[in-house]
């Protein structure tokens, strides 16, 4: 990197705001999507919105591309620096600025970790509803970029349903507020289209987030089935019965075994599938719903239906679920997870297709996912030292996503397109759809300096990735 540029960045954020040494920068070579890697030429960690704006203004003037990054827990390569030399990390924008319980919102900087928000208000009976499995590490800014979900979004909605307003540094360095701290803001919903734009519209530095009252009571079930088929039938039965569970999660044998080995919760390792079903809300509503759920499970041949005895057991169950991906490390040196969505009634079909793909490519695939939303997370296991297996993982992942699209679904439910699924965007969007998206990006990001080479495939460009690009040997 040009020494003059480096000097200027040091001036703008101070020596402790710059990560320049090669070994220190290499930590930033990928996010949770590890199939592709690229080391940024420099990482800057601004201390304030004004510093972010100053850095971006300078980079815009020099026409140097940059990529924003939160905690790097993304799963589609959204913060991979592709032809973007400068990475701007939000880790120092880590303050909760304002808590207003009476009006039920908080203002937090974008580097604040998701769980910190709920922790800051839990003693007063409130929570921030979106709860991605990585919520102990992932940041609010990253959640906004990806429009993150989580197990409880079945009832409570995803990030976009909980954000009132954003402070954004636009790609030219201008600081703007999109939305606000009140509910109805006139004008185009620029907040709405910036959420989920994967950091291509600017860098979010601060957000006003809605708080939700903690429910009066929870009830959490673990339903055990001999087969995935019976579990999926149960999911359809519960949804069709008119119950809106807070969460409805499925895990198959492979993942149950991995989790049990890691956390010793007491999962039956011989089960074909388990469902975690959680209902919450008014205490008075739980008993009648419990009866209905138990009867639906029994009707679908559940081997047993356990109910978490107390909050400790409930928390242990969720901890196991949310750390499921970590447990995979016991089965395989590397894994890649997909995030396709199908209409909820098509879950049995997609699971059948995943089994076929697993056999065809001779790969082990575990399933742990948000069954109530039809949002699958097949985990494809591989060893990146095995080039052939790595290639098969890429192919198999694509085939699963194609199957989702065939069934009327989508490429991604909560992880984003990133670099990973760019090539498949034409499967669900026409050239005209993609053109409007490109125009939209140009409104915010006219020179495409902010997180380039993401989401929208370049026309005529090499978009058909058959092997991972930019793989950096470990």
């Amino acid at each position, binding site marked *: 990197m040009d020494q003059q540029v480096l000097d200027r960045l040091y001036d703008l954020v101070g020596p402790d705001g710059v990560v320049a040494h090669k070994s220190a920068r290499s930590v930033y070579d990928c996010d949770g999507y590890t199939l592709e890697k690229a080391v940024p030429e420099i990482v800057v960690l601004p201390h304030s919105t004004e510093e972010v704006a100053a850095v971006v203004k300078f980079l815009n003037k020099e026409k140097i591309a940059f990529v924003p990054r939160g905690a790097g827990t993304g799963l589609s390569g959204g913060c991979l620096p592709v032809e973007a030399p400068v990475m701007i990390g939000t880790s120092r924008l880590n303050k909760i600025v304002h808590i*207003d*319980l*009476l*009006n039920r919102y908080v203002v937090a900087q974008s580097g604040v970790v998701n769980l910190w928000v709920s922790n800051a208000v839990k003693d007063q*009976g409130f929570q921030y509803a979106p709860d991605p499995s990585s919520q102990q590490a992932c940041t609010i800014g990253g959640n906004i970029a990806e429009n993150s979900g989580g197990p409880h*979004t079945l009832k409570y*909605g995803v990030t*976009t349903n909980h954000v009132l307003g954003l402070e954004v540094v636009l790609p030219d360095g201008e*600081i*703007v*507020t999109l939305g*606000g*701290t*009140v*509910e*109805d*803001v*006139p*004008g*185009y*919903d*620029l907040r*709405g*289209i910036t*959420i*989920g734009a994967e950091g291509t519209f600017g860098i979010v530095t601060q957000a006003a987030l809605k708080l939700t*009252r903690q429910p009066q009571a929870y009830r959490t079930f673990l339903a055990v089935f001999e087969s995935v088929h019976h579990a999926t039938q149960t999911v*359809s039965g519960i*949804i069709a019965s*008119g*119950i*809106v569970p807070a969460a409805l999660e499925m895990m198959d044998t492979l993942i149950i075994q991995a989790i049990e080995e890691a956390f010793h919760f007491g999962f039956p390792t011989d089960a074909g599938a388990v469902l975690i079903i959680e209902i919450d*809300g*008014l205490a*008075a*509503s739980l008993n*009648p719903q419990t009866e209905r759920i138990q009867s639906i499970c029994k009707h679908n041949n559940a081997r047993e239906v356990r109910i978490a005895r107390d909050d400790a057991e409930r928390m242990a169950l969720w901890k196991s679920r949310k750390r499921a991906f970590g447990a995979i490390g016991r089965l395989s040196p590397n894994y890649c997870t997909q995030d396709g*969505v*199908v*209409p*909820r*009634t098509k879950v049995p079909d997609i699971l059948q297709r995943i089994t076929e793909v697993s056999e065809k490519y001779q790969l082990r695939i575990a399933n742990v996912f*948000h069954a109530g939303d039809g949002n699958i997370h097949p985990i494809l296991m591989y060893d990146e030292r095995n080039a052939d297996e790595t290639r098969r993982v890429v192919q198999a992942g694509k085939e699963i996503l194609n199957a989702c699209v065939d069934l*009327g*679904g*989508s490429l*991604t439910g909560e992880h984003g*397109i990133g670099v990973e699924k760019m090539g498949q*965007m034409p499967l669900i*969007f026409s050239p*005209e*759809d*993609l053109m*409007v*998206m490109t125009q*939209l990006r*140009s*409104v*915010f990001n006219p020179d495409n300096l902010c997180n380039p080479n993401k989401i*929208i495939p370049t026309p005529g460009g090499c978009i058909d990735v058959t092997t991972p690009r930019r793989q950096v040997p470990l």
Partner: protein
Amino acid sequence: MSRISFQPSEDTFTPLTQAAGRPPSTQFIIDGKAPETVVYPTSIAEVSRLLKEANEHGRALSPVGHGAFLHVGGVPKRYEQALCTTALHTVVDYQPTDMTITVGAGLSLARLQAILGENGQWLPLDPPCPERATVGGVIAANLNGPTRLSQGTVRDFLIGIKVVCADGTLIKGGGQVVKNVAGYDLPKLYCGAFGTLGVIVEATFMIRPRPEAHATLAVPFSSVEKAGEAALKLTGSDMQPFFLELANFSPLPSFGDQRGDERGYRLFVGFAGMQEEIDDQRSRLRDVLGADASGIEELSVDEAQTLSQSLRDFPVSGPATLRCKVSIQPTQLATFCADLAAEAQRRHAPARFLARAGNGVLYTAFEGEAVPDDQILSLVDWIRVHATGNNGFAVVEEIPSALKERANVWGTVGKAFPLMQRLKETLDPNGILNPGRFVGGI
């Protein structure tokens, strides 16, 4: 004959050129301006062709449904053609077990709810005039009702959209699944854009089971401050009201006539869900409100239905010189209402107001015969200064057309406005879609 179908009713379509000496169409008049033509496309392909033509000829076009909300928005800069979507009323796809439905934009909300009701489901939105509100209109004008407190707003349920762009290109955003982050979130772009970026032709919603039971309670208060405090107690509690409305008038005629003071302040609290939940909340309500609960009264099923319609339709019902919608913090509502009532009284324009107390959204209607223009404008000023002073916003939803420009009906939107202008110029470069009707004259 062209493929465009025209409804044969005489007052729906009368091209200016054929109507020498007669007034043009009496339908879809916006601020006194009538369109030269009204077209009723029956397919998306027709919408596409009409827009392509309009774009090529620089013909200003306004998408309309049944015209229920045409009084909202700025005075059109130009208005040559009304494109009525009501013939696009098909149910494209309905999967009750997936809890999603895709419909044409011209379907009325009432019809949509009736279809969903056959399966015990509903789209949890209750904007004014569901018989006359089309799906496309509800999205474009971002219309919501009392249940937004517990259910959310249009943008929370809209998961997919098809739009014909200004140049006639058909595009889609989102999809038909309940969770989807592929590509930019285009449904949000068109929600509340007031038809200035494209014509919505189809929409996919996620839907919900209909609540099994309802209860509605009315709680009288001696002052708006006390009513406001009680509302905050409720929203800060672990109760889950279906809606929570604060009014300074009685939306039920029977309250005024038979039950004493028509003018007092009331909270209307709705509950919905399973019978067990309703029974529990009904008794909890008294605990939470404490001494305030003394005058509490539960409405009969018929009364509750009349009430929910009145609450829902308030933003467009009855004559009014001026109507505003204010969005502020819930904690600021009571003071705002008290001060506003006094300001209105001073100008002999008595104010009725209805607040979505848990959302901080306030609808006001000012009555009063022959209020002078400068008094109306000074009231708008007062409202706007006090709303924006509290980081809020005020939109003038109804005012005599002659005052619209001076009242700046949408208010200002701050530093984000240049982005909005660029967006409009990018997606509608010839400025044919609803010109002049949206923020800042967009």
